[in-house]
Structures are given as C-alpha cells and as structure tokens.
C-alpha cells in the first residue's frame, strides 16, 4: 500500500530530543568516565613501554592502539575497545523502544503525524551520534596524550589510518546499538531486553573467540606437513578466520588490524589473502602496505559490519511496525 508523506518527517525532531536526553543522562557520565579511564590508562601503559624500546617505528601513534604487553592479561587498547564498545552501545539502546511503552508515551507520540520509521531511525541516529561523540573524544584524547608525551606529531598517513579506525569503531557501535534496539522492540521489559543483549554480547565477544580455535582444529583437514613443523594448516587458518568473523567483534578486530598495521608481514599473519595479494603485486615481505591497499583489504569487513547494522535495523523496524501500540 502506498503511504502518503515522507517516512522521514520527524526524524530530526526525534533525533534532537533523544540526543539531548543522552547527553544529559547518567549513562553519558559513565561513558565519559570510561573514555577518560581507557584513554589515559591504555595510552600511558603503551607509551611507557614504547619508550623503552629504542627501535624506531614509523607508526608510533598507531602502535598506541595495538600495544600489548607480552605475557600480560591486559588486552591492547584495540582489544579493550572490542569489549567495551558493544557494552556502551547496549547501555544506550536496550530500552530505546520499550521505555516509551513503559512510560506510556508511545501512543501519544505515534498519534502525531510521523511514521514509526522516523521514531526508530531518530533514536538510532541519536544513540549512534552519542557513541560517536564518546569515541571521537577518546580518539582525540589518545592522540593528544601521544603528542604531549612523545613530542612528535603523527604523520598524515597515521592520521588518515586513525580516522579510518575511528569509523570502523563507530560502525561496531552501530551494530550493537541496532542489536540492543532490536531487543528493546521485542521485549516490553527493559530488564529482559538488557539481559538478552548482554547474553548475546557475552557469547559473541567473550565465549566465541575462545571456542573458535578448538572448533577450527576439529573441523579443518589437518596437514601432516604443517603439523610436523608446528604450524597451522591452510585449512585451519581459513576455518579460524571464517569462524571468528561470525562475531562482529572478529570483523572489527580484523578490519582494525589491517588499517592500523601497515606492515605486510603482520597483515599476512592476520589475513591469509594478503599473502596472495602482496605476491601478485610483487611486494617484498616486511614492506609496508600503502594506505589504499590497507583500506581495500579492510573493506569487506567494513561493508559486512554495515550490512549487519542495516539488516538488524530492518528486522527491528519490521517487528516494531507490527506491534500493537496499546501498552
């Protein structure tokens, strides 16, 4: 059936209200505290250790995101973000729709001349903008601390790669925001919705990465030759990456690694296809991959993340569309 009027009337109004709500909320204060703690903590740790190594690195700033102390349980900043970003997104989205029902504002809002699309989209964009604000602040904080303590400005390539990483991080936030909002549509109880979103987070972000190596070892065809020299077979590597990419966090780490780590040998380790690509282009191992090559490599993961956002949002939209407005 054709509908009259644009589905987007009202998106701006919803967005402004929700964004203002987020900025003034207690959750935003928590987000700010986390940003400062993570930013200062991880950067200080990284800088303290990076300084000790005399080795000169062309990508000092990017290393701030990747630095991980050997034999330490503390993850790299990247690893920490892969865990924290989903949590923040869930925190902002788990009660987006059901709270309107619980406050009994839903029918009053939907009696205004807007479509349900506008309400859902406005809320999503407001949440995403809030998360983007927090992540950008974190990013600036890290660069700022790096600048102050290391005394050298980042190169333009480092800045570009850093921005690409920021965008990938915001996309990950979008995925989890959409997931949280989907639960907020499905469940009328905010507690149930939060619990389900956290359960999914626990599985995809914490449990799944632990399961992947064992599953890969089980299903992959073993290569006796590789086994003898203590290496993983090609099939095992393929399975490993294939399985780890089921989780949005796997996709995120993959894409972020490729963007933040221009050295090809590092990239080969991460992504088997890089080996082929660099061979095709006659590149020397250990050389650095140019920016556009890195982006090209990260592109499938980024588009997959975006596709996940869009499809989860679409499911949430359809579920919301069918919902009775009466509380």
């Amino acid at each position, binding site marked *: 059936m054709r509908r009259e009027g644009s589905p987007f009337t009202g998106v701006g109004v919803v967005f402004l*209200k929700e964004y203002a709500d987020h900025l003034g909320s207690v959750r935003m204060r928590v987000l700010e505290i986390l940003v400062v703690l993570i930013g200062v903590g991880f950067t200080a740790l990284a800088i303290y250790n990076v300084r000790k190594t005399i080795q000169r690195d062309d990508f000092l700033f990017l290393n701030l995101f990747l630095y991980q102390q050997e034999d330490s349980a503390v993850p790299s900043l990247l690893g920490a973000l892969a865990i924290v970003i989903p949590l923040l997104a869930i925190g902002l989205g788990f009660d987006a729709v059901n709270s309107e029902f619980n*406050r009994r*504002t839903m029918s*009053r809002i939907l009696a205004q001349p807007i479509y349900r699309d506008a309400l859902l989209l406005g809320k999503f964009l407001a949440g995403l903008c809030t998360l983007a604000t927090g992540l950008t602040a974190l990013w600036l904080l890290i660069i700022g601390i790096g600048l102050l303590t290391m005394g050298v400005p980042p190169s333009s390539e480092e800045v570009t790669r850093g921005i690409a990483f920021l965008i990938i991080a915001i996309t990950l936030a979008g995925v989890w925001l959409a997931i949280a909002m989907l639960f907020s549509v499905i469940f009328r109880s905010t507690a149930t919705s939060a619990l389900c979103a956290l359960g999914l987070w626990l599985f995809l972000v914490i449990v799944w990465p632990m399961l992947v190596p064992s599953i890969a070892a089980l299903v992959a065809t073993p290569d006796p030759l590789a086994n003898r020299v203590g290496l993983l077979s090609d099939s095992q590597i393929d399975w490993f990456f294939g399985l780890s990419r089921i989780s949005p966090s796997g996709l995120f780490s993959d894409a972020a690694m490729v963007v933040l780590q221009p050295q090809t040998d590092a990239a080969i380790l991460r992504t088997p296809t890089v080996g082929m690509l660099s061979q095709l282009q006659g590149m020397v191992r250990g050389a650095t991959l140019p920016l556009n090559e890195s982006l090209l490599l990260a592109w499938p993961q980024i588009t997959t993340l975006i596709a996940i956002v869009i499809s989860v949002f679409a499911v949430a939209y359809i579920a919301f569309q069918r919902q009775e407005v009466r*509380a």
Partner: protein
Amino acid sequence: MTDTVIEIRGLRKDYGRAVAVAGIDLDIQRGEIFGLLGPNGAGKTTTILMVLGLTESNGGTVRVLGEDPVRNPLAVKRRVGYLPDAVGFYDNLSARENLLYTLRLAGMPRAEAIARIEKAIARVRLSDVLDKRVGTYSRGMRQRLGIAEIIAKGAEIAILDEPTSGLDPHATLELLDMIRDLKADGVAVLLSSHLLDRVQSICDRVALFNRGAIAMQGTVKALGQQVLGAGHAAHVEADGVDVEARLRGVAGVQKVERDGRGWKLTADRDVMAEVAQAIVQGGGRLQRLATAEPSLEAIYTRYFEEHKDAA
C-alpha cells in the same frame, strides 16, 4: 450545521478468533461531544485506535475529516488530538519541553509552538508549573496537560480515552469543564468513560458498546425512552392539594412515585404545561417543577441486566 467529521461503517477488528469490534457504524458531527460507553473489554479503545489509524482494521471503513486513517495517516493525525488511556509524559522533562516535542513532531514551527503552549497551558491552569518536571505532576495535572496538548495542536477532533478515570470528583469536574471548552471552540470530542453520571452531563450523544457491537446510540434522552420505556420524567414539588391524584389525572402520565420531598412522574410525552395547570387549577401551590433527564446509570444498568444472557 451538520458536518460529519468521523464516519465509521461496518468497522471490525479481530484478534485471532476473538472479535474485539464486530462491525459498527458511527457518525460524529462537528462540534458535538460523543460518548462511547460500555463495560471493560467492550471494544472502545480498539475503536479509538482504528479511528486514529494506530491499529489496522479487519474490515469496514473509517473516514476522519474525509481521509482514510490507514492510507493517509499523517493527514489524519495532523488534525486529530489524542489523549490515551492513562496518558504518560517524559518525567525528566518539563511540561513545556514535553509539549514542544509533540508539537514539533506535528510539524509546527518552534516559535509558533512556544506561543501556543503558553496559551494552552493557561487554559488548563497549569501556568505555575509550566517549567516543572512532569515527574512531579499529579494524575489530574497530567490529564490536563494532555488536554493542553490537544488545544495547542489546534486539533479539530479530540479523542479522549477514559479522560476522567482515576480522578477525584473535583478534578473530574474541572476536566469536564475543559472538555466543554473544547466543544465551545468547535472541536468535535469523542470520549470513552465509565463515570456515567459525569459523562451524561457533557455528552450530546452516546453509544452503548456491548461485546464489540453498538447496542444503541443517540441522545441520553432517546436511550432512556428506549431502555427504561419512560419518555419524559419530571420532578414535582407542591402542596395545598392532593398532588398525587392531580398528577395521575393528567393525560399521558404513566407513573407517579414519591421522590424525596416531592413526586417523580413519568409520561409518554412532554406534560409540563398540563401538570402545572392541573396543580394550580386544583388550588395547589406549585413549588418546583423540573424535567428529570433519565439517568444514564439507570439506562446502562437496566440494559446490561436485560442482556446479561447475551453478554
């Protein structure tokens, strides 16, 4: 001026195999207050939601100001104000911010919205608390804020679902006054309620819902005739004569009963003039003579007693 603003024909709604609304016809005219009455679960709220296009029907047609609320929901919602059953606001925002949000959603420019909010809030007498958080409001104040939203929106039709439920008698009277004011502005009001005697005082016409169908509709007086079988009722107080005998002597009078200090009579037509004449000619002193509207409560109770087996 008869100008139909809401036209409902054969409207029905099924929830699975349960029938919530079973094919109803209704016409609501501009500038009238129309009451939807019926027991819990009769289908009043469902009907209201279909009129607003918030629930899709399973058959029949609705026209609101000539528009189809399913096909052109925005056109309908722009011109209709809705006060839901147990209305809610954003407790962390002030009344002004709450209304500003809905008016902006309705597409009103900010400056105009602000001016209208001031006026509307003054009309529902909430000006002192305009900038207080709605979380601090009482039930009655929230209800009034809902009315203010409809006024500020400039709605041509106001749809109020149980507007007086949960209010104390004083707050109820206040709210009914505000609903009358809406009518005075030329707004058509469609309301549902359980407080029958209150509703009676403001409704021009009512429809009695029973299990998803409209059992009957019309003015309270007409329903009284239909259900109680009493055309006209009057209250008489007089002395100096055998009032009861005199009243019984008037042609058309069917029943005379003691009622407080006077008598209550029921007749099949308007007999006011004859009654006055009969008492005065008999040498009596007429102290009070008033028509008594049939009570909606009585109509309602009687109707549902008679149709208990059906219900």
